[in-house]
């Protein structure tokens, strides 16, 4: 063996791959099954009465099982938003677009949703919106079932009604 063969190793690649089954869980499965039917399904805490959508099954405040299933309406309020202008890898939506935090009516937590059918310079906090679902034969147990949210045309929600959810 020559000296060259004993040159110090300065770098090595060690490929890693691990495969997993994912367990959505009893509570989230209800929400996912709801998407497949074109419905928002949440759960209410028996103690603090807050409604979570999606629900993790346990109230993060009280640590008790949220066993009451609540079907939420299609309508909600934009609590805050972001206008995306910067291209990125894997981008599938035409720029610019609006990413909004949607607080469904009757829910106590907001989630992120795509806003369409409104010019980007007209979006605002308090905007009233509704979900547009994909055609029935394209519904599935995932959030892709919601095509986007669009304005309902109602007057804006009063700031007081959503200030706790920002």
């Amino acid at each position, binding site marked *: 063996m020559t000296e060259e063969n004993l040159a110090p190793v300065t770098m090595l690649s060690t490929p890693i791959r691990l495969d997993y089954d994912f*367990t959505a869980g009893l509570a989230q499965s209800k929400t996912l099954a709801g998407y497949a039917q074109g419905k928002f399904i949440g759960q209410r805490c028996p103690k603090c009465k807050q409604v979570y959508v999606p629900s993790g099954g346990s109230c993060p405040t009280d*640590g008790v099982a949220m066993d009451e299933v609540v079907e939420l309406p299609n309508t909600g309020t934009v609590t805050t938003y972001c206008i995306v202008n910067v291209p990125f890898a894997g981008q599938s939506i035409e720029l610019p677009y609006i990413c909004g935090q949607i607080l469904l009516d009757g829910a106590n937590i907001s989630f992120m949703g795509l806003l369409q059918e409104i010019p980007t310079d007209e979006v605002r906090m308090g905007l009233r919106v509704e979900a547009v679902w994909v055609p029935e034969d394209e519904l599935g147990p995932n959030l892709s079932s919601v095509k986007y949210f669009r304005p309902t045309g109602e007057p804006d929600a009063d700031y007081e009604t959503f200030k706790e959810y920002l």
Partner: protein
Amino acid sequence: MSAPKPVVGNRPVAICSFAQSPSLRRVDQANEVEMLMPVIAEVFAKANMTKDDMGFICSGSTDYLIGGPFSFVMALDAVGVWPPKSESHVEMDAAWALYEAWVQLQEGVIDTALVYGFGKSSLGDLSRVLAMQLDPYTMGPLWPDQVSLAALQARALLDRGLSTEQEFAEIAARSRHDALKNPNAQVRNEIPVAELLEEAYAVSPLRRHTLPPLSDAAAAVILVAGDRAYDVVDRPAWITGIDHRVETHAFGARDLAVSTSTAMAAKIAGVGNGPVDIAELHGPFAPQEVIVRQAIGLDDSVTINPSGGPLAANPMMAAGLIRMGEAASRIWDGSATRAVAHATSGPLLQQNLVCVLEGES
């Protein structure tokens, strides 16, 4: 009544409540949080306490079992942490979370702590997942499976004349037999040693019965310091000694037939200061029980793993904490006055924790 003076630490701390979910090959519908929720509810109910009574929360789990980040943060939903709680986590068996909580209690600022651990081995290929804890340069890239590694250790034991395949089978038979009395155990049966020895090798010299089951489960305990422990349980299981030691991750630099770290921890925890009635040992593979038992210095009079031990149920990140809970249970029910609990973490008994639990006689 007063707590026995601890050998390690200044402040007496006791295990006062314990709950565990049944160990199953696959918890199918519930996710980790949902598997943990009833266990947390039960450990509080048994202690007649709530989350608001807890001064500290510490958990043991690993994202590598779930394949997702920050699973321990999601798990906090099972407790409910509002108003905000002082909380910590170890990426180890929850026995080490108990150790961290015990250290916190030694400071004298808080009197109570909740400790829990959870793991679902069923979500991935556990042998590949556990290869991730090996050194990433020379050992990890070979992806050695955990059974083959345990076989190296078993071979070292046999070659030194420190055990026999017969003894491995006897350990498995005893564990599964004792597990018949434990509704939370997973492998519970009555198979004669001679029949076990007819099994083919999984990896020589390990037959299938020397391997721990793949388990999904969660466990939790409540620690209480000082006289408050008597408000929770009639006969608290006082931690009179606790210590943990770690050895090098390089197998080639270790004598695999012995466990130096366990022996050191046992000495510091004061195991030899009195007779031991029962011991709950966390040697997931049958030969590892031989090594741990020898290292702690337990003679034949000591009842080993009356719960069935890890050969009957081995939920990752919880099995070590379960040893402590099971040993404490023997103190509470009066069947033991002095008990030893052992937990291991890392490959081939790399890191070991030894705890001595005592009840008033």
